[in-house]
């Protein structure tokens, strides 16, 4: 399991569902439809991504195709990290 996925699963496991279930959650399972995240949960997820990786998630990108499964979150974070050199450097500093 790669690092971002591990981070995201840990965040979900610690904040939204009971122990052990975060790992069992299918990577492509909708987090909102499985009752893991509601609207406040999505805001907290965004805040987590912003703080953990130094990303800015613009309102118009806070969409299910970017955030509504573990796989989608990982892909979105990777894409944003790859796109922004400055952001990525900042994130590396934070992660380190």
């Amino acid at each position: 399991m790669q690092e971002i996925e591990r981070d995201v699963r840990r965040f979900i496991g610690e904040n939204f569902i009971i122990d052990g279930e975060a790992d069992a959650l299918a990577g492509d399972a909708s987090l909102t439809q499985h009752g893991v995240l509601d609207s406040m949960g999505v805001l907290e997820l965004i805040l987590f991504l912003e703080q953990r990786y130094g990303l800015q998630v613009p309102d118009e990108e806070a969409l299910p195709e970017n955030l509504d499964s573990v796989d989608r979150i990982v892909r979105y974070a990777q894409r944003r990290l790859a796109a922004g050199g400055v952001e990525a450097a900042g994130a590396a500093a934070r992660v380190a």
Partner: protein
Amino acid sequence: MIPPAHRRLLHDGLLAHAAERPDHPAVITADERLSYAELHDRAARLARALQDRGVRRGDRVAIFLENSATLVAAIYAASLAGAAFMVVNPQTKADKLRYVLADAGAAVLVSDARLARLAAPVAVELAHLHTLILGGDPAEAAAVPGAIALGALLASTPPEPRPSGVIPLDLAALVYTSGSTGNPKGVMLSQQNMVFAQGSLAQYLRLASDDRILDVLPLAFDYGLYQALMAVHLGATLVLEASFAFPAQVVRRVQEEGVTVLPGVPTVFASLLAMHRNQAIGMPSVRRITNTAAHLPDDYVPPLLEMCPDALVYKMYGLTECKRVCYLEPELVLQKPMSVGKAIPGTEVFVLRDDGVPAAPGETGVLHVRGPHVMMGYWNLPEETDRMLVPGRYPGERVLCTHDFFKVDTDGFLYFVGRSDDIIKSRGEKVSPVEVENALASIPGVREAAVIGVPDDLLGQAVRAYVVLDGGVEMDERAFRRACMARLEAFMVPRDVVFVDALPKTDSGKVRKKSLTDAVADSSEHPPGTGRTAARDRERS
């Protein structure tokens, strides 16, 4: 064909529109677009399937589903079969799901394979619950022991329900609402209660069959439910979203689908306005904006009108026990900024002092409501029912005593003053402090807890817990929060937790909530707790 004047039952509108305008879109979701003919077909097949499995007039059919076309179809299926429906919020945890299904004595549970983890064990436990129907992935549904897969069931059943014998006085729905005693109460609504209310609402909102009504609210919440009922009543179109979790997506749907009616609670509008401040949003198709559940701050109105220049803004007030009490004519929003208006069409309200005398203008009293929308009572709770439904004008008549404090002005406009119970309104949803306290007390290591509401710009009120731990127990906020998430729907989970050594008590040993509330009101300190959402909002503003 049933002419409008003769539509007495909830499903009569559906039957009429399926015959008259079969191809008109009835329900649009992210996954499906159902015409009136298709919605009717799905509802009629499910109704017959329910009857074939023994559902009789008056039986309770529980619907535990995300907002979806099937959820809407299941409501009408129950009505066509002569049963009463009850929609359970898909966020509900196992204990509460079991409680409401047992309380209602539900005969059937309609759910989804994705929720089977919760639904199936509860269904097995309850002897009165004889049928579990699961939508969603057919293979997953079929793999659940004892469950019937919805798709196969519909395919093998004709769209021909048998006459049920139901009349307008029969029970149409149970709507569960948080009570101050801790357990949710089932509000009993008759067919005639609901048919009357949907017509009254559509009348004052000035809606018509070409409207496209957005619904982002859970259908377990009567405000969300009535968007669907009004749409079908009118032959209009319901644009149904699973939730408001992704506001940008909702805005896109409004724009793409040409939504004309935008119902929300202040939290929904706060999110839209935060986005609008970052980057201007245009939703020119919107003609009506409706708000209820909590006061819409006056400074929201101008930016809402920037987003939706042709919209009329409605401020409203209601309670599940009669669906809606009053509304303010949108033309008066600026003249009567603090008022929630006057009684909805076909009903009346009056404010009475303690001694039963009508309050003079400016004087505070208790709001009473009279009309065909007043509930039948609470399911299985005769004492609670007698507290809320009091003798009315004519022998045998009962009016609703809301126990909420109101004033009227010299023009007869109503002003909300306060609640007489300690129910918290957060994100437009009712939170019972006792229900949350009971859940917190079940967390290992928690000795006792007291829960209050504290003012919050985004939520209306935020839930705050004061918690005393058992001696020697250490628990951080994160562990506490996880334990809460496992026991409570998200909107009930305390935003703030304050660990204390002891709670303020009265001489008789009851927690003195007023001391906690007063301390919050007096202090200018920053609220404790994560405040994560508040932090984000500050960032954005």
